[in-house]
């Protein structure tokens, strides 16, 4: 064997030592970085705020961008300032004037100006992409001065501030977006090419910067060191796409991830008792309901409002709550988390005698047979087939024989949206976190009118007048009163029978602190920190 000369040996040893030292330094640097790993079933196709409209992009853009105003951390009970330090609304409710903060800078260091807001909102409006409908109420935008924006609406719209909290209204740096193919011109839908750029980086003002996105694989965010607000705890957040809830659970238990966003109720139950894992369980945003088509030719017996009442009193609401841990019974189709929504304490309770009496009054003392359509899927951990079987059993108690007809999602959706399903089981999540969303479920509303054929001529003028007022009333107390009356009415006469709001369930490492779930953006990563 060849022998190494002493000097060679020494230099080899020194070299090795230096390498080890360097490796050690790199290792300790890497250790010093606080990293948060989130397991999440990614369902976005874009992060460009003018294109993205789904839970994943909402979660990312919540921390990569800021909006003019926002909700409190855990609910939608009020409107809080964010980029706008203050605002005023004209007496006719048409002009909103926002005064911007003067200490806000974009990720590239440029200061926030009114021009950026005008560009961002016009770009959203003219993109004619998924979230563009949110900008429909805007008639025009004006940068009054460097820090003042005036937004003129088409009609008075009391829900406008709540709609502005959506991350679709994220403010981007106009100059950078323009330089990368963006435009806010009326033909933006055809000519804007900035999406590819905005899918890979963010030019916002949020506490995190989008570092990279590999679709269906992972999204990486790094802390914005110059954030104008409170600095977030984690230096880096990696959101890995784990489509299967079962895999998320395994990864969480094995310590591969810190937080799993998409567990199913049974998995959460299985994790109870594990001291290393915390579980969050709260009412989710999806209201499950029955649709009873009001067109006699389509709905048959369920088009009769008396049968609707019979169905309402026949359902075993408590049974659904037991079936889905943490779920609640809604009092109406207005999402239970909204101020003024009828919650479980105001919900209809099962009363089989009353239900049978309604059946007899409607002329069906011996019941009838009907097909129940529903999409064959599991949504947010809730299997619709399981609920459908329970609905079938509940209805059998008052003589209604429901034949279950699960359909492939898109096919069933087509029947639902075109209004040809007589009796259907569906779910709804609010597009806007404002009571105005409930107007979809009253005569003239999208869901009521087109899907249940429940039209304006089927209800009293008095109710229609109330519905008309609900859309424009700006006084908060008067609004609450109007929506309370509409919900009470829906418990007497409605083409819809809401029966359950399943829980949202998140499990995370017990070392994490600050977890809050929000109905708009789901998870705010900037609020999380780690204890030692």
């Amino acid at each position, binding site marked *: 064997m060849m022998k190494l000369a002493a000097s060679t040996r020494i230099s080899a040893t020194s070299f090795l030592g230096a390498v080890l030292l360097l490796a050690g330094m790199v290792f300790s640097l890497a250790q010093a970085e606080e*990293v948060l*790993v989130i397991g999440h079933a990614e369902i976005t*196709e*874009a992060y460009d705020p003018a*294109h993205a*409209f789904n839970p994943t992009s909402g979660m990312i853009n919540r921390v990569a961008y800021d909006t003019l105003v926002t909700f409190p951390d855990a609910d939608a009970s009020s409107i809080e300032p964010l980029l706008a330090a203050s605002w005023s609304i004209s007496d006719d409710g048409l002009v909103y004037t926002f005064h911007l903060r003067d200490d806000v800078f974009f990720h590239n260091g440029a200061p926030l100006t009114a021009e950026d807001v005008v560009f961002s909102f016009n770009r959203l409006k003219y993109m*004619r992409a*998924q*979230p*563009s*409908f*949110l900008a*429909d109420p805007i008639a025009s935008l004006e940068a009054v001065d460097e820090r003042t924006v005036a937004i003129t609406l088409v009609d008075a719209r009391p829900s406008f501030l709540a709609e502005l909290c959506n991350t679709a209204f994220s403010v981007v740096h106009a100059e950078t977006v323009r330089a990368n193919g963006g435009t806010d011109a009326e033909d933006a*839908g055809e000519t804007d090419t900035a*999406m*590819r750029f905005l899918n890979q980086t963010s030019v916002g003002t949020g506490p995190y910067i989008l570092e990279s996105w*590999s*679709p*269906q*694989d*992972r999204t990486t965010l790094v802390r914005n060191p110059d954030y104008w607000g409170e600095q977030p705890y984690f230096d880096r957040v*990696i959101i*890995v*796409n*784990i*489509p*299967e809830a*079962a*895999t998320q659970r*395994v*990864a969480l*238990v*094995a310590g*591969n*991830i810190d937080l799993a966003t998409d567990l199913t109720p049974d998995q959460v139950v299985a994790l109870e008792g594990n001291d290393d894992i915390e579980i969050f369980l709260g009412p989710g945003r999806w209201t499950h309901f029955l649709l009873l088509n009001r067109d006699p030719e389509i709905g048959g017996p369920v088009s009769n409002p008396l049968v609707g009442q019979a169905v309402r009193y026949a359902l075993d609401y408590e049974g659904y709550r037991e079936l889905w841990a943490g779920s609640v019974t809604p009092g109406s189709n207005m999402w239970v988390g909204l101020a003024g929504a009828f919650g479980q304490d105001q919900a209809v309770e099962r009363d089989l005698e009353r239900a049978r009496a309604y059946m007899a009054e409607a002329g069906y003392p011996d019941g009838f047979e009907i097909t129940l359509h529903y999409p064959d899927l599991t949504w947010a951990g809730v299997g619709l087939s399981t609920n459908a079987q329970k609905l079938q059993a509940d209805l059998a108690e008052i003589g209604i024989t429901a034949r279950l007809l699960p359909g*492939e*999602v*898109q*096919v069933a*959706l*087509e029947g639902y*949206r075109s209004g040809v399903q007589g009796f259907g089981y569906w779910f*709804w999540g609010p*597009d*806007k976190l404002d009571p105005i969303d409930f107007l*979809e479920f009253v005569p003239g509303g*999208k*869901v009521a009118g087109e899907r249940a054929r429940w039209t304006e001529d089927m209800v009293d003028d008095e109710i229609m007048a109330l519905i008309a007022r609900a859309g424009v009333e700006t006084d908060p107390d008067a609004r609450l009163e109007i929506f309370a009356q509409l919900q009470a009415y829906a418990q007497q006469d409605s083409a819809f029978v809401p029966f359950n709001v399943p829980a949202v369930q998140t499990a995370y490492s017990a070392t994490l602190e600050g977890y809050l779930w929000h109905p708009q953006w789901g998870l705010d990563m900037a609020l999380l920190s780690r204890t030692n």
Partner: protein
Amino acid sequence: MPLYQYLLRRVIFAIPLVLGITVVAFLIANAIPADPINANLPQSALNNEQLVAAFREKWGLDQPLHVQYLTYLGNLLQGDMGVSIRTNQPVLDDIRQFLPATIELATTAIVVGLLLGVSFGVVSAVWRNSPLDYLVRVFALIGVSFPVFLLALIGLSVLHAQLGWVAGPGRLDFLVQRPPHVTGLYTLDSLLAGQWGTFRNAAYHLVLPSLVLGLYVSGIIARITRSSLLEVLNSDFVRTARAKGQREFFVIMRHGLSNALIPVVTLLGVLYGNLLAGAVLTEAILAWPGIGRYAYRASTSQDFPAIMGVSMLIALIYVIANFIVDLMYFFIDPRIRYA
């Protein structure tokens, strides 16, 4: 028949096949009684007629079906597979992004499956009706019949979470950076970049998925190898070889196995195509960002350009895989060479 003539004939046969597939895929994708508008616009946006009309116009959904097809075909001939409705990216770019993960997985799985399957098949045939043979046959039966996604989940729960023998979900540990993109195959790209740590990690992450899928492949290959080898070992030329006093090992490997592998090679083309196209559930369970997931999401959102693109891709993969198989015949089977 000379090789070039043989190849040319195969290529010419493939053209109407691929065209036929575009027609079938297009008809099936459009036969679904559902509107892509519903799948791709949020509920509230459906109120806005302008948005709906703009969407239909942008994606050509306002055109008659035959016009849509001919436009698609015309674009395809120019190498343009269209733009995905869902991702807003050219379908070709999407395929480039998602296919390498699946190729890496399917290739390692087929190698694992081939090695295990042939070994088991030989053992089983040579020691026919012995306890070892029964053991291998039970193993093959399990490999073929056990749901792959369930095996993946069990593997993940037991081998990874409890025993720590294999890596967890994903192509890399979540804290490991991806290698610079060259081919999209992480093992190869990390080697090209000289990132040994990343290479080890990527290879480690391939162990469980390739075992899970490889087990399924090996079950099929073991059964075919066994029956084929048994048939060959009973043939006259093998008896002659034995009569000539050749060593048994040589007889089995040279005369037996090389002839018994012909049906296995046939099967390989189909199996590889199956693995590339059919690993949807395995990819979902193991958080493997491959073409299976892309295809699944395209179909559930009625993303016609993407559905067409993936159908074409899978068809092409089958055509190419079988083309390679045919080519291998040319070399391993003298009957074709001299036909």
